[in-house]
């Protein structure tokens, strides 16, 4: 599996092909459709990220020393964005996930999703993914 930084670069390159917002969002919507979906049994209240305009379920488990994330949302754009996060952070070690500072969201022109009114979505998602990494790391010890 490529390192987090490398995957971020690939995503930035992919988004570079679109010079208008419409193209970008069409791509995000496509990505939303290929999101590794969380198993229905994990779509519980406790795996729900609260405070979002859309509902987001996130689940993480260990596979060897790597973390595998799955998710779902009732909004497609949200699914696309969490799909991007999973592409970057899934199959990485807990340490790499905890220590990473993601830059690609800003660089692909989706900065507005980081604004406080919507951040409920994105910022909470990244925070939750890191929390999972921290929790699973202690399990490995």
């Amino acid at each position, binding site marked *: 599996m490529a390192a987090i930084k490398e995957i971020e670069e690939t995503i930035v390159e992919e988004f570079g092909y679109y010079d208008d*917002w*419409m193209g970008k*969002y*069409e791509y995000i*919507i496509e990505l939303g459709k290929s999101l590794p979906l969380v198993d229905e049994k994990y779509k519980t209240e406790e795996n729900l990220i609260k405070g979002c*305009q*859309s*509902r987001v379920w996130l689940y993480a488990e260990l596979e060897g020393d790597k973390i595998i994330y799955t998710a779902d949302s*009732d*909004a*497609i*754009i*949200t699914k696309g964005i969490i799909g991007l996060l999973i592409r970057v952070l899934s199959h990485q070690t807990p340490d790499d996930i905890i220590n990473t500072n993601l830059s690609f969201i800003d660089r692909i022109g989706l900065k*507005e999703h980081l604004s406080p009114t919507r951040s409920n979505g994105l910022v909470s998602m990244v925070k939750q993914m890191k929390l999972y990494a921290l929790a699973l790391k202690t399990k490995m010890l």
Partner: protein
Amino acid sequence: MTTVTQHKTVLDIQKIRKDFPILTRKVNGKPLVYFDNAASSQKPQSVIDATNKYYSFENANIHRGVHTLSQEATSAYEVVREKVRAFINAEKSHEIIFTKGTTDSINLVASSFGKTNIGEGDEVLISAMEHHSNIVPWQMICEEKKAKLKVIPINDDGELMMDEFHKLLSKKTKIVAVTHISNSLGTLNPVKEIIAAAHEKGIPVLIDGAQAIHHTTVDVKELDCDFYVFSAHKIYGPTGVGVLYGKEELLNSIPPYQGGGDMIKTVTFEKTTYNELPHKFEAGTPNIAGGIAFGAAIDYINSIGIETIAAYEHELTQYALEQLKTVPGIKFIGNANERASVISFLLDNIHPYDAGVILDKMGIAVRTGHHCTQPLMDRFGIPGTVRASFAFYNTKEEVDVLVTGLHKVIDLFK
């Protein structure tokens, strides 16, 4: 209908739009279409200038200093109280209490009225379409006093079930608190009937006018409501200023809300005596600049006429409803007969968030989500809606832009 046609010719929208500098803005490269007026309205230049002028030439604390600036600031601020009194046709200007906003006003009443009038086993009656700010303060006082919160249900069109309301009014009911116009559905409630029925049983009524004050003539004397609350920022004024109208007798009978400067007559460490109305409820230095700018907003509205505004908004809402009907898969949430310029809807199975993000890309500002009315969304079994809310500076052309935008949203998500 004659009034509608009569006013139609009066309002020069293009001229009015020039009074609102923000309307010339572009968002994401597109001319801004601002349809989130129910959340907050835009400000005319005169309101912006009033704020600017106050800080540039008039700034001083009020009700205290003997110096000229303080006296001028006090007069400018107190003039607004009189403007508000006249605007809602209250009997006396000291029945107008300045607050931070609607939420603050409701908290004041819930706390102060609740302290002396609500006890164990009593009931507070609200409706199923209330904003969280007209639910939570009551919930808090009910919890404190071991009282019960009762809820008037609504029908599928989003109208209050009045027969249920009458049944819910009981000897235990200590206050009724309902919204004049629903922020999520646009429903105009029969508040006069509600007030009359409650008064027959000696129960006071608070009307949440946050969504009504800028859309319809509000006459508190004619309504005979005991409390009427609203925010300046929804009526083209600044944020952080609100009004609590209360009948003098009631305001005198309830204790102060917050303690501090301006609300006292004498203070010793043993005992404090409280100031008279309205100061009794206005502890601390208020938002003076905001208050003065609020006065400019009222002047601006009066220069056009609230009835002219209401008639135009009605016409625009009817047009929008007609045009939106042509959007495939649209489902209106709230179909009340009597309604204001707020339209909530869903597009097939497209999530409101998805629609909102794409509309924003086209420069269209709508609100998406639960609109701070989660119990209402639960009542309809939906996570939220897309809400377009209009002001008198909006145009039919802008409605057309929204309709085109919605078609694009559908194309994108199908």
